[in-house]
Each structure stands twice: as C-alpha cells, then as structure tokens.
C-alpha cells in the first residue's frame, strides 16, 4: 500500500533517504511546472526545482502536519523562482487600477471561451493550446506571468497575493485581469481566432 505524503515526510525526518526520494519523484513534475511558469527558462526551472527540494529537506523539521506537503513545496518553489527572477532584472513598479476603457474594446468577447469549451474533457483545440501555453506564457512580462502562475498553480487568494507581492489588493485584481487578457490575445493568435484587442499595449 502506498504511503501518504505525510507518512513519507515523517520517515524522511527520521533519516530515511528512500522516503525523501519518493517525495521528490511524486512532486517533481508539478514543482517544475510552477518554476517554469515563473522563470521561463527550462534549465533554470530545473535548477530552481532541485533547489526547492533541497530547501524542503533542510526545513523538514519545521513542516507542520496540518498543511499539505504539496502546498508547502509549491510555495517554496515559487518563492525561490521569484527571487531568481528578481536577481535577473530589477523589478519595476507597475500599478494598474481601473482597466482603461480602450483595453475592453475587443472584436468578439467570448470567442476564445467558446472555442476552448468549458468541458474538462479537452477539445482538440484546447489540447493544442495547452501545448503552446508554456511558449505563450514566456511572452508575457514578468509581473503578469508571475501573478498568473501564483494564482493558477499555487492557488493563492487575492489576500495572499497582495501580501506576497507587496501590492494592494486592487492592483492584484486588475493585474490578473490584464495578465489573462494578454494571454487571451496570445492564445487567440496561436489558434488563429480573430484576436480581440490586438491593439492592446503595455
């Protein structure tokens, strides 16, 4: 019978390397996905992911059993990834409050959603776009890409995002809107759909 994450953490804490290795193997891909979303570069994401597990090991004693191991390591991963990103380029302040009216003037709102479908059983288009997603994500500015990954991979709430990024809640919300809009334009381009608001800048 397979051991739960918490049981493996317990054993790893006790000095069992195989238990820790199993934790690594179980979570490596998702951790990599989070890192890749933020740092863009695949090799860098690999390093960041390994760093995350090494750091997890260093702090095993502090892990509280009420939380989930997955959540814990994903948070650590995104923290390391953001730090790495900051070192590469200095952060720019980018405050956005209300969304400018011009941004909303698009040709056909809802087209992408219809094309992708809301059924989790993917349509062919959705599968194709998933394949291009990582590339499209790379084209977003750092601030937009980061907040999208934290929201959709780490599942952070508005409050958590505000605290983590040191920005007001309102900024979190409008930044997310802008980030998704940009992705929408990029994905529509990949899919050959009439791209809404392609004059959208910034």
């Amino acid at each position, binding site marked *: 019978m397979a051991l739960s994450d918490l049981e493996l953490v317990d054993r790893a804490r006790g000095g*069992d390397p195989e238990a820790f290795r199993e934790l*690594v193997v179980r979570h490596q*891909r998702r951790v990599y996905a989070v890192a890749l979303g933020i740092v863009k570069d695949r090799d860098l994401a690999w390093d960041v992911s*390994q760093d995350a597990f090494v750091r997890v090991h260093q702090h095993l004693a502090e892990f509280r059993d009420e939380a989930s191991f997955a959540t814990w390591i994903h948070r650590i991963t995104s923290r390391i990834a953001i730090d790495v990103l900051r070192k590469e380029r200095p952060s720019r302040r980018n405050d956005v409050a209300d969304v400018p009216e011009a941004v909303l003037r698009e040709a056909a709102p809802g087209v992408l*959603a219809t094309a992708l479908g*809301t059924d989790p059983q993917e349509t062919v288009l*959705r599968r194709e776009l998933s394949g291009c997603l990582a590339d499209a994500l790379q084209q977003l500015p750092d601030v937009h890409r980061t907040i999208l990954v934290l929201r959709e991979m780490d599942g952070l709430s508005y409050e958590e995002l505000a605290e983590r990024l040191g920005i007001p809640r309102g900024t979190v*919300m409008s930044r997310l809107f802008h980030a998704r809009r940009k992705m929408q334009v990029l994905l529509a381009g990949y899919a050959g759909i009439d791209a809404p608001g392609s004059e959208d800048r910034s």
Partner: protein
Amino acid sequence: MRCAGAAPLLGSRPGELDPTEEALLNAHLSTCESCRARQADQAAVAGIIEDGLLLEASRRDFTDFADGVMARIPASAWRGGAPVGGLERLRAFLRRHRVLAAASALAPALAALALYLYIGRTTGAGPSELAVEVTSEDLAAVVLETSDGPVILVGEASDGT
C-alpha cells in the same frame, strides 16, 4: 458600475469579493453580455495555465532529477549512509542512455502533442489499489482495470478513445 470597474472583479473565487463588490458585479453582469463573455474568456485562460504547464513538465525526462536532488543533500543527513554514490549515478546514466539510444532511431514527429494522462490513486485499504501514470507523445493512453491487474493500451489520438 461600468465595464471598466467590473473587469478586475472577474475571475474572483467564492469569498474573495466583499458583499458590495459582489452585488455590484452581479448587477452589472445581469445586464452586460460583453462582460459575461469576458468573464468566460478569463475563466478559459485561467483554466489552461495549469494544463499547459503540467503538459510541458510531462514532456521532460525526469530520470535524473531525484538523483540530482539526493546528490546535493549531505550523506550525514541520512541514517545508513549515502544513497547516491558513483554507482547510482552510473545506473541513472545507463538508464537514460538506453532510452536516448532507442529514441534517436525514431523519425521525428512533425507535431508532437504530449498527452499526460493521470489516473488517480485509489486510496484505502483495498487490495486492488492502483496508481497509473502514463506519459506519451502522439498517442493516447487508455487504462483498463481488470480483476487480474491493469491493461494499458496506447493508440492514435484521433482514434476516438
């Protein structure tokens, strides 16, 4: 509330908007078809982020990853000595080398769509506990559970499987 004010409220999760925001948003959405459509677009994009990144992760060969992590943890951390030594690294290299050698003989596919299929783990004390993780390029994987064990089939993605 106008569209510009409603936009940042789209994509919120239950409990994230305060009652005033919630009321204003719902009032606006009930009259504005554009914003309803916008909301659908936002949700569609949000949903694909995770899929896309996990797909990308499934394309990568993780054979050496755990070894790499274990190699960076000092042997003194474990009871019973170092789990990763020269022999372990050699094995990992051989494992990957074998796969790479076989793969190089394949004709490259023009558009490789990696499909990641994960059949959830059945937890509990049943004897038929099963966890299957299949990663395939170009092919769709189907897992059939039988009383004797799983049968894993792969086929063309357009098979309708």
